[in-house]
């Protein structure tokens, strides 16, 4: 059924341009019988903020997890700054300059704020295996101050923080990781309006600096149009739209989604009708 219902036209990313930092072509990924990504191609320019939209289950998070080295794609190729990009692990991707803020935040409840900030990138004292806690606290304080997040105590386990505070720690961890490509999976999901605005301000500042290129999954179209240069929409495991945010509008993006719902409902009804046809035929069998 899914094979027949390709929504919109299948847009392949344009051929590599000089300023592409990341390019992926024909990425597919299945989990057993479930196809998460059918055929995704996209590209990211240096200093660009790319917004990724799509329905729940469209494959956005899977794409992010492939890009950051946590999962391996079923097929397809990736290039990082013109070189073939085949991350072996999250650490490997991080070493190559790609860092990520997961939707589930990947925070450790029983570890403190600063230990979470430096998880897997711990500062050590000289060449010794001992953690340089003072330096990690200092850097954490600096990073949080920079975003405008006020946490009085960095030694408390993150279990005791609010959803918004936790999310800002996860975002701060990604932003201050020396990465040059940052992947953000719904960075505003658990945040109130005020904290969300802080994060969007931070992203605007990073964009102005121009060093960091960002792919960001968002749900709010207004946020996308406000903070992204370009938007890609994933529906049904393929990219259905690729436009600069200047050339699109909340109405157009909404129309695509509404369209998809109509198509999905029509497909479901057709399926149901077919099933009924079968069940009517059954007694005769």
């Amino acid at each position, binding site marked *: 059924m899914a094979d027949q219902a390709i929504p919109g036209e299948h847009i392949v990313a344009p051929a590599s341009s000089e300023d592409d930092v990341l390019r992926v072509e024909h990425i597919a990924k299945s989990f057993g019988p479930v196809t998460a990504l059918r055929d995704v191609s996209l590209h990211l320019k240096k200093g660009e903020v790319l917004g990724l939209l799509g329905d729940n289950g469209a494959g956005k998070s899977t794409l992010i997890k492939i890009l950051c080295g946590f999962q391996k794609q079923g097929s397809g190729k990736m290039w990082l700054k013109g070189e073939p990009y085949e991350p072996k692990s999250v650490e490997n991707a991080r070493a190559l300059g790609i860092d990520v803020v997961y939707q589930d935040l990947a925070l*450790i409840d*029983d570890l403190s704020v600063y*230990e979470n900030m430096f*998880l897997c990138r711990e500062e050590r004292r000289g060449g010794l295996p001992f953690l340089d806690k003072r330096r990690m606290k200092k850097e954490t304080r600096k990073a949080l101050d920079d975003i405008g997040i006020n946490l009085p105590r960095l*030694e408390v386990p993150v279990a005791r923080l609010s959803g918004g505070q936790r999310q800002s720690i996860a975002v701060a961890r990604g932003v201050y990781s020396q990465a040059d490509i940052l992947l953000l999976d719904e960075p505003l999901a658990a945040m109130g309006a005020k904290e969300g605005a802080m994060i969007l301000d931070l992203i605007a500042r990073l964009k102005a600096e121009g060093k960091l290129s960002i792919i960001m999954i968002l749900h709010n179209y207004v946020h996308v149009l406000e903070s992204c240069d370009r938007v890609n929409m994933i529906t049904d495991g393929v990219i259905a739209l690729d436009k600069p945010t200047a050339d699109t509008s909340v109405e157009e993006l909404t129309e695509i989604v509404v369209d998809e719902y109509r198509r999905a409902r029509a497909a479901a009804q057709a399926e149901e009708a077919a099933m009924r046809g079968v069940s009517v035929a059954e007694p005769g069998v």
Partner: protein
Amino acid sequence: MSSIIDSGTPAGAPTGGPAHKRGVPRSAAIPLGLAKRFLTAREGSIIVVTVLLTVYFIATLSSSFTGTANIQALFPYFAPYAILAVGEVFLMINGEIDLSIGGVYLFAPYLYYELANGHVPLLLAVLITFVACTAIGLVNGLITMVVGISSFITTLGTLFTLEGFTLIISHAEQVTAPGSQLAVSATSNSLSSFASVFGAGTYSELIWAVVIVAIMHVVLTQTSWGSHTIAVGSNKLGAAEAGVRVRWVVIRNFMVCSTFAGIVGILEAIRTSSITPDPSGAGVLTLSAIACAVIGGTLLIGGAGTVIGALIGALFLGILQDGLAIKGVNADYLDFYLGLAILLAMAINTYVGRVRKGSGLG
């Protein structure tokens, strides 16, 4: 005391420390901070209980309890448990458990005995035995993390396998520990340095325990090995997403736990100068070590634990056994009191944990 509590606090646990940094007058902040810190530290309750128990025995037994001879007699009652419990602590923080330490404890001295009988130099035989125990931990870890069997089942399997294997190779016969004969030689009062290092010296087991506790305490609180161990136990998926090598973290802790069980096996064999194939004793040893870790404040569900707590838990167990023995209490009462102590310590720990979370101490 306060410095022990402070450094023993698991990463990220609340402390009253920085209160004075926020302009609270020092004189008021520090005593309050210390008291709170002490009472809400994971080890707090077991320290209080252990001190009360010690005071009780001193008051009722006086010199027979505090005498040098008795204090020395106390060491074997707690040092082996402390070493075993420290290994368990790391696995329990991971959310795993190792039931096979009793099997390793039983097997290690027989391997050592066979090697020594095969004319391998004693020191080398000990080292080979330790490496073999590390390898058993590796097998436990691989089966648990790569094959994907729960560690309870994996180590139950290796426990019986090792016990059975030990009975087969030993023909269920007690033997004399090689190298320990020198220790009990009637003609000379001095121990060989080998025997005095590996268990027979008065302070040997104590020193092993203290050194192992100190090293593993630093590993848990001051290195990424420790914080990754907590991370894996607290949020396995999150840790993996952040880049923690989850499998390796757990496998490494299995290897350490097994090695410690091997060390205790050798120390006890040379201390008592005999090697006995007694699976039931080994089983009790395993559960006692886990009890020490638990009453010391380490959670069975993972995410938090303390090495110092395990040491105090073992000390509590030792003092209880020793004190009751001197009082002439029937040995049957020992398990009864130990059981009550576990329940009491756990109830206090849970209550303190609730206070810690609810009082906004952090």
